[in-house]
Structures are given as structure tokens and as C-alpha cells.
């Protein structure tokens, strides 16, 4: 444990591989899994086999294996070092931050520098995003033909479930993980997050979760889709345990991430950084973090109940034994609806943060935008039963849920109004990040309008559970989240990575993605209206032409992502053309720092005397603040 205090350069070569790092983490993770597996097998009574539909399936040993495996992984990474050192009486330090130096190896170990964690996040989540994307390509390959099958029905449903879980679970942190961790300290003028170890913890937990979800393929997959409804989950093969482990860890990670960001934003703002001067992206982080903090515990509790149903033979979700299948649906969506706004809200912040830069104007209607974000955040807790409009639950409350759901379009409308006001009479530049923001405007508009149909009970009766709703949430999540994610990557990427991206490839990426995205998901509205339910492995033959169109378009999305990958690898690994410190002439604080941003961000803490959007005639060309780190 004392190795951590020793600077990296003085270590013998073998210690670099077998210190507390990713490699040790993986080894101890595997050891932990085996220990848990053995304990599980020891306590598994043969009588429990009565309930198992799968021979040789032992949910207890698998779940304990995951639990111990994760603990082993975290110990291997060095998360136990600090608590143990403190217990032994050592003084508090931030050794992981201070002593790692600036070598590349710190990306493969526990590092508490918020900039390093952000890069770890973006690469790590990127890998799993790729997995989810490949799942989508495989799903669309299966749907090329109604009756000739690439996959078996079980494999197909596992792919659908993995795609959904990966995208809805892992991607909750795809903007807050990399960009909030990287930007919030720089935007509010501090050197680190409030809890740097927890910051690193959330990332490594997310990676463990992703690996666990993939291991589902060794246990027969799961047939429940990403919603994991009970009582179907009770009969699912052991692969469902991977779903439980995955989503529960995501829940813990999400909850801690939101808590850490809120604590940082509330307590660590630099002098002069009042609430009304907070960059709008930081406000969107506040709104999202509140949701994460409050919604994620519900998910963890729900999955715990699910795990107990499968292992200890409780009956929380078993109708007829005193439980209720409704209970799972309710609990899941009490988490699940805030969750879709966890996914959407950071996008609002990015769009409103970028539009002023590329319109050369202050953000229009700052207070309205803040109200919009907090309003969405608040209202999202009161709409969940619109997922259950035809389930027969609380049917008399449907007018209320119809109203509350449609009310969300008011704060969302504020975001649109602020975007519209910001570009009015601006001097608009069509840079790549700007194009992605405008793509968001179009996609989210379609997503929002189609949401009105789903929120309206008579219309929802036909569209519910069909490809229509699938198209709707892909417009809001892929068209919303993923487009703003790319906007953020192209906008802040030069600062984060210190390299310039190839402009031509970036533009090809945008246009191919935008066109292929719409060409993929717009026909899905029609397919839903024509009667195609979600998650089917086969469909009526007359729907084949439309499905083929969608599949081919989806493959073009895949190609477009390949362009992005080539662009990133080319610019980051081979070309390495150094980026301008402020290529966008932005006036917010993070762009006033040198590229790459120094290890300790600021030499002297900045003092703010205005909001980060001082564009316009008042003070032409003046920087937002005198940034200490630039000296």
C-alpha cells in the first residue's frame, strides 16, 4: 500500500504492472467471482431446484459471484487503500491525484484528477456504446426478413435486451460522466470535485457493470428486454442475474455521480460565481444530478427485490403469493421516467451552452432556461404511469397523468424558446458542433411532437408498445442525447484531448448520421401505426419493404459511426495536430485556460464578475474573466 506514495518514475518495472491498477483489478475481480461462486454453491440447498426452470442454474452463486467479483475488482484498483491507511492512522491525502505524475499509465488506474476521470469515462463508455451499437446492427439484420432468421428467438431477445440496457443504463452517464466531471470544476472555478475518490469510484463501477451485462451471454441471456418486467423475470434464465447486477451497479454509480456533482456545484464555486452566473450547462447538470440522486435508489431497491424473488424465493412481484406484477412496473417506472430525463437534460444544457458561442450572442432568457430544466426535473417524477395507460392500473388517474405528461412540454418548450431567442439576429456560424446542435433541434422537435400522441390516452391505445413508441424514444434519446454528445465531443474535444479533429470527416459524420438517423427512425412511426409491436422476432410479410428500408438505413448509421471512429483515431493517434487554445472564440472560463489544461487547472482561483456569455457590443472581445491558469 505504501507503493502509492512512491512516485511512478522510481518504481521497478514489474511494480508498474502489478501495483494497484486495472490488471490487478481484473485478476482480483476474477478471484472474487470464484469465491462468491463457491459460497453461493455452498449455501444453495437442493430443494431450491424445484423452482428452477433451467437445469444447473444457481442464481445465488451467480449473484454472489458478481458481488464478490466487483469487490475484488475495486480492491485491485486500490479503492481499499485509502480507508485502510486512514484506519491505520495515516493523515488524509489525495495521493492518487498528486503522485501519479502525468504519464499515460494513470488512465489505467485509480486516478482522482477530474480531467483524467473524464477521459476514462469517455473512452470506457465509448467502448460499451460500440457494443450497444453493434447489438442494434444485429437486431436490424434479423429484421431484414420476416421468416428467415439470423438468430434464434432467445438470442434475438437477448440482443434486444442488451441493446436497451446498454443504451439506457450505461448512457445515463455519457454526458455527466465525461463532460460534467471535466467541465464543472473548470466552469465554476475550482481544482477538483468535492469527492474525487467517489468520482473515480463511479467510473470504475460503471465499467464493472458493463462487463457484467456482457457476461449474460454465458448464462443463457435474458428474455425480458431492458425493462425486465416481473413475473417474466422470475422465469428468465440465469442471464437475468447479469441484468440485475448491471443495473444495480449503474444505479449506485449514477446516484453517487449526481451526489458528487451536486455537492461540488453547491459548495465549491469560486468567488463571484453566483447561481445566476452559473453556465447553463452547469444548471443542466444540477437538474440531472437531482434526478440521479432521487431516482436511482428506487432502481437499486427494485432490483434487490427482484434478486430476492429469484434467490431467496420471496414473492414481491409474484401475483397470487401476495405480491404483484404491478409493483415492479410501478417501481421501475418511478425510476424509469426520471431516467429518460437524466438522459435528455444534459443535452438541453449543451445546446444552450453552444448556441451563444456560435451565434455570438448572450444566452437569451437565462432564467427561463433554468426554470425549464428544473421544471422538467420536477415534473418528471409525476408522469410515470403514462407507461401503464393500458395496464389497468389506476385507470381513473389517467386524466391526471395525461395532464402531467403534457405539462412537461411547457418547460421543454422554454428550452426551445431560449434556443430560438439566442440565434435571433446573431451571427451564426455553421461549425460541426453547431450542426449537431441544430440536428438536436430538429430531432427533438419530432420526438416531442410524437410524445404528445403517446401521452394522449385514446391515441396511445394504438401506439403503446408498438414501433411508434420505439421511434419516439429513439428520436428523443438518440436524436437528443447522442447528437448533443457528438456536439460536446467536437466542441470540447480539442480542449480535452489537445488535438484538432479533421473538419471534413467531421462534417461527413454529421450529415451521414443526420440523414441516416431520420431515414431509420421516421419509418418506424409508420411501422408502429401499421401494427408492428416492439421486440418481435418476426412480423407480417407486408411490412418487409419498410423494415428493409429501416435496416439498410441503420447500417448507414453504423458506417457513419465508423467515420467518426476513423476521424478520432486519425486525429488523436496519428495526426496529433495541436489544437488552438480557443478555436471557437468562446468566452467561458474553460477556454481561457491553456491547452492541455495544467494538472492543477488554476494557479490562482478565478473571480467572476459576470455570466459566461458576455457576447455583444457592451464589451467587444473582452474575455469572460482573467483566468489565473493562463499565466
Amino acid at each position, binding site marked *: 500500500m505504501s507503493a502509492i506514495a512512491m512516485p511512478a518514475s522510481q518504481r521497478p518495472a514489474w511494480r508498474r504492472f502489478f501495483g494497484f491498477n486495472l490488471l490487478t483489478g481484473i485478476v482480483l475481480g476474477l478471484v472474487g467471482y470464484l469465491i462468491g461462486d463457491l459460497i453461493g454453491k455452498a449455501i444453495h440447498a437442493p430443494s431450491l431446484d424445484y423452482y428452477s426452470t433451467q437445469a444447473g442454474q444457481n442464481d445465488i452463486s451467480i449473484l454472489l459471484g458478481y458481488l464478490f467479483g466487483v469487490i475484488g475488482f475495486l480492491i485491485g484498483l486500490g479503492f481499499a487503500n485509502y480507508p485502510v491507511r486512514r484506519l491505520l492512522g495515516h493523515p488524509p491525502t489525495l495521493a492518487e491525484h498528486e503522485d501519479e505524475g502525468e504519464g499515460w499509465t494513470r488512465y489505467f488506474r485509480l486516478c482522482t484528477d477530474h480531467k483524467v476521470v473524464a477521459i476514462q469515462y469517455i473512452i470506457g463508455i465509448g467502448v460499451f456504446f460500440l457494443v450497444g451499437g453493434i447489438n442494434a446492427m444485429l437486431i436490424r439484420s434479423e429484421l431484414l426478413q420476416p421468416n428467415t432468421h439470423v438468430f434464434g428467438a432467445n438470442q434475438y431477445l437477448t440482443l434486444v435486451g442488451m441493446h436497451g440496457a446498454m443504451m439506457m443504463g450505461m448512457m445515463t452517464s455519457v454526458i455527466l460522466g465525461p463532460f460534467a466531471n471535466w467541465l464543472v470544476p473548470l466552469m465554476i472555478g475550482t481544482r477538483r470535485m468535492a469527492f474525487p475518490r467517489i468520482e473515480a469510484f463511479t467510473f470504475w463501477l460503471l465499467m464493472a457493470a458493463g462487463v457484467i451485462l456482457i457476461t449474460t451471454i454465458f448464462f443463457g441471456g435474458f428474455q425480458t428486454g431492458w425493462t425486465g418486467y416481473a413475473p417474466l423475470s422470475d422465469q428468465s434464465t440465469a442471464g437475468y442475474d447479469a441484468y440485475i447486477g448491471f443495473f444495480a451497479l449503474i444505479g449506485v454509480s449514477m446516484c453517487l455521480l449526481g451526489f458528487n456533482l451536486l455537492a461540488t456545484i453547491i459548495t465549491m464555486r469560486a468567488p463571484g460565481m453566483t447561481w445566476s452566473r452559473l453556465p447553463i450547462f452547469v444548471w443542466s447538470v444540477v437538474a440531472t444530478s437531482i434526478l440521479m440522486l432521487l431516482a436511482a435508489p428506487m432502481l437499486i431497491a427494485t432490483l434487490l427485490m427482484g434478486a430476492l424473488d429469484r434467490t431467496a424465493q420471496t414473492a414481491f412481484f409474484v401475483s397470487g403469493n401476495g405480491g404483484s406484477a404491478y409493483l415492479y412496473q410501478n417501481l421501475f417506472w418511478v425510476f424509469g421516467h426520471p431516467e429518460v430525463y437524466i438522459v435528455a437534460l444534459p443535452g438541453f444544457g449543451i445546446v444552450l451552452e453552444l448556441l451563444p458561442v456560435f451565434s455570438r*450572442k448572450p444566452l437569451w432568457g437565462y432564467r427561463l432556461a433554468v426554470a425549464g430544466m428544473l421544471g422538467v426535473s420536477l415534473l418528471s417524477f409525476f408522469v410515470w404511469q403514462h407507461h401503464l395507460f393500458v395496464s389497468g392500473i389506476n385507470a381513473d388517474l389517467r386524466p391526471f397523468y395525461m395532464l402531467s405528461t403534457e405539462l412537461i412540454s411547457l418547460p421543454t418548450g422554454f428550452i426551445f424558446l431560449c434556443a430560438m431567442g439566442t440565434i435571433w*439576429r446573431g451571427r451564426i456560424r455553421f461549425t460541426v458542433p453547431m450542426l449537431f446542435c441544430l440536428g438536436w433541434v430538429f430531432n427533438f422537435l419530432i420526438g416531442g411532437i410524437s410524445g404528445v400522441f403517446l401521452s394522449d390516452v385514446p*391515441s396511445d391505445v394504438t401506439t403503446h408498445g408498438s414501433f411508434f413508441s420505439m421511434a419516439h424514444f429513439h428520436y428523443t434519446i438518440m436524436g437528443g442525447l447522442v447528437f448533443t454528445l457528438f456536439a460536446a465531443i467536437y466542441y470540447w474535444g480539442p480542449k480535452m484531448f489537445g488535438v484538432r479533429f479533421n473538419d471534413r470527416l467531421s462534417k461527413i459524420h454529421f450529415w451521414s448520421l443526420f440523414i441516416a438517423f431520420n431515414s431509420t427512425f421516421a419509418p418506424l412511426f409508420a411501422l408502429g401505426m401499421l401494427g408492428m409491436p416492439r421486440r418481435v422476432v418476426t412480423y407480417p410479410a407486408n411490412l418487409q419493404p419498410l423494415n428493409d428500408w429501416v435496416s439498410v438505413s441503420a447500417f448507414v448509421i453504423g458506417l457513419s459511426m465508423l467515420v467518426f471512429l476513423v476521424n478520432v483515431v486519425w486525429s488523436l493517434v496519428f495526426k496529433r495536430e495541436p489544437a488552438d487554445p480557443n478555436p471557437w472564440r468562446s468566452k467561458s472560463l474553460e477556454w481561457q485556460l491553456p491547452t492541455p489544461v495544467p494538472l492543477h487547472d488554476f494557479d490562482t482561483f478565478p473571480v467572476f464578475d459576470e455570466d459566461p456569455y458576455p457576447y*455583444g457590443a457592451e464589451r467587444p472581445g473582452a474575455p469572460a474573466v482573467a483566468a489565473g491558469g493562463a499565466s
Partner: protein
Amino acid sequence: MPTDNVNHLRRLALIWLLVSVVATPLVVFVLAPGLPPGNGSVQASGQVVDNGVLLGVSTPVALAVLVYFVYALIAFRERDPSSVLDGPPVRGHSGVQTTWLVVTTAIVLFLAAYGSIRMLEDGAGGGQGPNPIAKPAGAAGALQVQVIGQQWKFTYRYPSFGGVETNDLELPANRVVALHVTSLDVIHSFWAYQLGVKADANPGVDNIAYVTTKGPLTINIHCAELCGVWHGYMYATGRVVPQNQFAAWIHQQQLQYAPVRKLLPPYSTTYFPDPQRRGG
């Protein structure tokens, strides 16, 4: 500058008005009436009308945003790439903000009220749980039909015909039908497409959906909630037939299934088959 603003706004309003005046009637009167689920039942027709109203409201709204963006992006684009000038430092306009708030609130309240009225009028074909409040006219004399979801098919019981359980769904034309949807194992969702009916089948729940049939019709039935491996294959065809034909059919079914009828559990709103643990 202010007169310039007014000119821009006037032009914008004019373009939006022109586009909306052309597009909205086209959408509402040409596109919407032909949209699914069609006119197979009173509830399905109600959904078509409802969709028409929603489209009628949302088309001008969507066009307003689209027209605005297209106009602004063209009119306010930076023509000189080397320019370092900024736009005017306008940080908001309380009049515009208030107007926007009032207009969007009015639209939302109208939509929620309209949707509720529409739903309460005839139930809109959705599942309403065991104690429905939204009943169509003539619900008191409705034909009771139980829909039993199970992995992986729907079966039907007709309590007013001796509780006979059939493999196929047949309904009499021009009749109010109360569909009691329940499940024996996991959650299914009964989707009778042409009738505009969708109701989840939950184990232990009597989920009632009303439908008022019109003329004879073939119905595509599909399960709309993931219910296990063969969910994709859980589809069937049902029929709406004239009254006398229905009478003949149900009589024939009673005869055909008479031997099985003795083995069935008595008709009940819900069933709990053994084993109660892992269903199916």
C-alpha cells in the same frame, strides 16, 4: 434596429401563416382520416378523430419552430468568415416569454382536456382495470368476453354461453363488448388492431376494455408486451361477424368443446394456475 426586427418578424409570420394554412388542412382532412387504426369500431374511429385533432394542433406548432429556424439560419448566418463581430447583446424579452408561456399552456390544457373527454366518452378501447369508469353507450348490456393471455397464445371464454373456452375470437357486429383481459402467467398485452383495443393481461387482474363493434371485419391480434421467447409469434386472427352467424358459431363451439368444458376451472375473473411460482 427595431424596425428591422419588425420586418423580420412580419416576414416570418407571413411565411408561417402561408405554410400552415396550406399544410394543416391537408394533414387534418386528407392524411388523418386514412390513418390507422381505421374505422373498425366506434373506439377505433374515435382514435382516428383524436389523432386528427392532435395533428391539427401540432402541425402549426411544429411548423412555427421549423420555419423560424430555417428563416433565422438563412437570414442571420455569418456571411464573412473572418469577421470577429458579435450579435446584439439581447438577453431576453419579457413580452415574448409571457406570450409563449400563455400560448403553450393554453395548447397543453386544451390537449389534456380534449384527450380526457375523448377517453371518457367510450373508453377509447384501452384497458381500464376491474372497475372501469369510461363506458360506451349501452355498456350495461355488453357481451362479456374473457381474453386469457398465456405463453404464447390468447384464448377466449364466453361466460354468457356456459363459460365455453375457444381458441379463436369471434364477436357479433354492432354490439358493445366488454373484454375482460387477464393472464395465467406473465404480463401480455391484448392488441386487437382493427378494433383499436389494447389492454395488458396481468396475472390476477381483470382488466376490462370496452369495444363497440361495427360491421363484419377481420381482426389482427398481437401480443404487445414482451412475454418471453415466443412473444413474436403470439399473433392470431379474429373476426367480427353478423349477429346470426355469431350465434351459430358460438353454438358450434359449445358443442365442440363440451367434453373439455367439464375439465376447465369454473369461470372466474382471474385464475391462479399451479405452480404459482415461476409461471408457465
